[in-house]
């Protein structure tokens, strides 16, 4: 077993040499990161010029032609999004390793509804959480006395306000849209959780949840993580997520490229533009049964928006694909009765729809 770098620093003998050892240890931590960040930035910067040269100069395709612009879009976006994802997932995973679900639950334990919903939505964004743990987390929260509505706010915010989506939206559409997405996602989670709490849905929760006792023991937080553990977690997460989403990503970018190159400029504007009041409704109707990762749906969203779909409509589409997924519903069925599950889907879908209309009004 290798000794983590930090331990060497802490074991340093005399104060003076101790400081130097600490500095060396710090440099050893920072140097690889700096190197990786520089390399990342260089590739990111070169991505545009590279595909300009390859597609337009080397292959001799016309930038205004369908094939030329479509192919350029595909190559450029694939590399750009892969780079963004790799960087973001790594940084977010490392940062998130300092927050735990157990600490989040402790923070939510004494909260009442209202304030609790707000806190739960915020914590839902920053707490590392996989929807495969939705059921034990739900039971754990409820058994610790967190109100159902507050727990649901957490479970809604967690997939809805997705860190990957935030950074991709920022990269593709700019700061304003990314901020609107975060704000509306939080609002949806707060309101939907609060409404469900008001409906006194306890009677629609499977009774065994309330009978679960913690045997009077506190949760073992597991082993404390070392710096190299956190780095390894970050690398693992990048690999896992990229391996899981690359087909979605390629299909999303491929569809995006097709729309980019082939769909007529006003095709979507005519059918689902800002003037069509039914557009967000259709978008959410299509989006709820579809399930995709934020990274897969965003290239498509970008292309649709470029072809005249209103921003609110495409955001509503994205949120409904990301927030409500069949696999998670099947898992949650173990603890929630069908009525509550239906209310859950209904309230979240309506909230997303409302945001879609709101964005179309104000943007």
């Amino acid at each position: 077993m290798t000794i983590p770098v930090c331990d060497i620093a802490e074991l340093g003998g005399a104060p003076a040499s101790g400081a130097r050892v600490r500095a060396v240890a710090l440099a050893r931590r920072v140097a690889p990161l700096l190197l990786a960040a520089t390399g990342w930035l260089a590739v990111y910067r070169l991505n545009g010029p590279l595909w300009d040269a390859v597609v337009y100069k080397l292959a001799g395709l016309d930038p205004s032609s369908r094939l030329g612009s479509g192919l350029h879009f595909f190559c450029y976006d694939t590399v750009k999004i892969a780079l963004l994802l790799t960087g973001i997932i790594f940084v977010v995973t490392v940062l998130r390793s300092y927050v735990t679900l157990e600490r989040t639950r402790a923070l939510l334990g004494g909260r009442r509804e209202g304030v609790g919903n707000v806190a739960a939505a915020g914590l839902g964004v920053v707490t590392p959480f996989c929807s495969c743990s939705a059921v034990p987390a739900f039971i754990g929260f409820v058994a610790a006395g967190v109100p159902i509505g507050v727990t649901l706010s957490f479970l809604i915010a967690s997939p809805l306000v997705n860190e990957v989506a935030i950074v991709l939206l920022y990269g593709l559409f700019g700061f304003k849209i990314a901020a609107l997405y975060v704000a509306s996602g939080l609002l949806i989670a707060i309101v939907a959780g609060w409404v469900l709490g008001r409906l006194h849905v306890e009677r629609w929760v499977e009774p065994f949840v309330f009978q679960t006792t913690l045997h009077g023991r506190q949760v073992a937080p597991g082993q404390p993580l070392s710096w190299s553990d956190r780095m390894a977690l970050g690398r693992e997460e990048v690999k896992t997520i990229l391996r899981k989403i690359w087909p979605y990503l390629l299909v999303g970018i491929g569809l995006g490229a097709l729309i980019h190159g082939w769909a007529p400029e006003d095709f979507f504007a005519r059918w689902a533009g800002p003037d069509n009041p039914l557009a967000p409704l259709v978008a959410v109707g299509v989006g709820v049964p579809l399930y995709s990762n934020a990274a897969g749906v965003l290239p498509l969203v970008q292309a649709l928006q470029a072809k005249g779909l209103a921003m609110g409509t495409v955001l509503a589409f994205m949120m409904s694909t990301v927030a409500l997924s069949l696999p998670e519903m099947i898992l949650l069925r173990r603890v929630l009765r069908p009525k509550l599950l239906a209310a859950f889907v209904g309230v979240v879908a309506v909230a997303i729809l409302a945001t879609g209309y709101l964005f179309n009004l104000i943007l």
Partner: protein
Amino acid sequence: MQIKILGSGCANCAALEQRTREALADLHLTADISKVTDYGEIAGYGVMRTPALVVDEQVLLAGRVPDRATVTGLLTAAAPRAS
């Protein structure tokens, strides 16, 4: 040594079980390995993130699939208590 793997049967739980078996083989230890898939029982251990590793009713690890060295370390630490 009684080892329980807590989890609903996702890929991570299978990975954790695999690592645990490998670690046991490395240490030349034998243990009863059982799987706990019932959500009520999982929550009873206070575990909110699966998969989790329970040795002799003690939760040693939850929420991630550790590497083999980590499991080996945990089992080594737990072994003297058991025998």
